[in-house]
């Protein structure tokens, strides 16, 4: 049993009316590790989480959490999981403490243990001062921290974090990251969905890249970057309108479609790892004989992996990440 992955997903399919949200997803998350499920809007990340959290029934395939089938053994699954969604799922007319104690009672911790656990979590998520205020007076960041605290009341062995930091300010984001790392260090299995590449890079042992309902790549962040091999080349022409021409000129040496920033004409490509490719690409740009403001050669970032693997531009991901 101990070798069994905490989360095991095979051939998962789900359609909403005619739209295929999941088209055969396979995942395995070893016990005590963090998997980052990365993908653009509409890739199917939330659908995966909702199925695993027993909120949504799949059309096909299987999903198991700690060995329990999410459809046939939902009650067992619910005893083991915690869920923090994209929106704070807390009672706004109740105080932070009341929300936590209520969750404790629903997990049948009893009155005294619920109160103790609530106090611990208020402390952990830095909500002690606001503990006895109604949630409707909380800021967005505080609500999300309370939401995370609520999903930890039962000390879940598997935690689902569905875009836990979307819309949070940097400080609140760091707080969520710290807690996530602490939990992972303590042996909690975490499935994290995010559209922020840096978040997946920072928190996850492994990353699965989801695009249009399929896992298009999986590995450690460095494995994924190594796949690209070559350099990351950034060229910014003086004239914004020249971006297209630059992109067309170097597409031959690019892995995946070049990305063009429409605001300043900047072109980013992941250059083929073949010897000479970088020099050839730079020569071709020079031959265009147009004014260039900046050229930068760097090592590939996770963004490049993301763009080289998730279909053509316009599949939903906006550079910069915010929804």
């Amino acid at each position, binding site marked *: 049993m101990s070798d069994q992955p905490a989360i095991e997903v095979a051939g998962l399919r789900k359609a909403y009316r005619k739209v295929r949200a999941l088209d055969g997803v396979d995942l395995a998350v070893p016990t005590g590790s963090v998997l980052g499920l990365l993908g653009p809007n509409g890739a199917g990340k939330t659908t995966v989480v909702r199925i695993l959290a027993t909120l949504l029934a799949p059309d096909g395939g299987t999903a198991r959490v700690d060995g329990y089938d999410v459809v046939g053994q939902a*009650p067992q699954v619910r005893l083991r999981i915690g869920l923090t969604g994209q929106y704070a799922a807390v009672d706004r*007319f*109740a105080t932070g403490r009341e929300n936590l104690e209520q969750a404790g009672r629903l997990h049948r911790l009893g009155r005294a243990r619920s109160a103790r656990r609530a106090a611990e979590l208020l402390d952990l998520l830095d909500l002690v001062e606001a503990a006895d205020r109604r949630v409707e007076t909380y800021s967005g960041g505080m609500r999300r921290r309370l939401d995370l605290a609520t999903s930890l009341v039962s000390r879940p062995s598997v935690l689902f974090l569905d875009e836990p930091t979307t819309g949070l300010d940097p400080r609140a984001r760091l707080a969520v990251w710290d807690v996530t790392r602490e939990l992972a260090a303590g042996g909690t299995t975490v499935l994290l969905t995010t559209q922020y590449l840096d978040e997946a890079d920072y928190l996850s042992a492994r990353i699965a890249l989801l695009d249009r309902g399929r896992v298009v790549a999986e590995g450690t962040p460095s494995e994924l970057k190594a796949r690209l091999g070559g350099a990351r080349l950034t060229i910014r022409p003086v004239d914004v309108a020249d971006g297209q021409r630059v992109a067309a000129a170097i597409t031959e040496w690019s892995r995946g479609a070049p990305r063009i920033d429409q605001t300043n004409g900047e072109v980013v490509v992941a250059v083929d790892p073949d010897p000479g490719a970088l020099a050839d690409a730079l020569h071709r740009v020079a031959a265009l004989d147009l004014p260039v403001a900046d050229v930068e050669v760097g090592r590939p970032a996770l963004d490049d992996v993301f763009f080289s693997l998730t279909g053509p531009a316009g599949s939903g991901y906006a550079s910069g990440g915010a929804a």
Partner: protein
Amino acid sequence: MSRDAAPAVGGISALVSDTWVMTRRNIRRHVRVPAQLIYSTALPVMWVLLFLYVFGGSIQVPEVDYVLFLLPGILVLATAFGMANTALGVAEDLADNVLDRFRSQPVSRPALLLGRALFDTARNGSALLVAIGVGFLVGFRFHGGPLAAVGAFALIVGFGFGFSWLGVLLGLWVRDPEAAQTAGLLFAIPAMFASSTFVPVSSMPGWLQAVANNSPVTHAVDAARALTLGEPAGRPVTAALLWTAGILVLAVPLAVARYQRIGH
């Protein structure tokens, strides 16, 4: 393999404990934002005063003062209108993100709905007490003795509990909070007027008499009226209880099944 290790989830004690958590959640909410509580308490009082003083002079009922005829009807009306609040509350719960949390926790499945129905029943009960108090000021009295008075109160509260499950069903079906509340009123208003609530059924045209005589509201009102007037109440009380039981037997399983189908 792992199926053997599955611990028991649910059972009666879980249902009781979770239902209490959910009921308390509703109480907390309505005590802190009491507007709805105030309106639903004021509504039956308003009905009593309006009908008594606006129509009371022109509505003739045989043998008794209109206030004695009217008040039991208003009490049943209050619970029927409570159904619209139940529909609203359930639809609001369904639209609330917190529903995902409850559904992903080992919460006893009917607890959310049952907690809502029980809260509304308690609210009905307190609104009835206020309406009865106002009724006393304008001439209402229990003429059947204390036991019949308690019986009438319990019968109306029980009928309201049954009706609140119709509200639960509406909330689950309609899902949009405002639409659910309106649907509740669309159901409750004709159910009230096509009954013996305000006027004797015998004063209606024939086809409407047929409708009114077979309305559960008429049976509840007739039963409450017989008990408060001190008239023989065996038949109407039996009919009202049967209707209440019938509504519950039908609506509760439907509502719970519908709730469990969410996400499937």
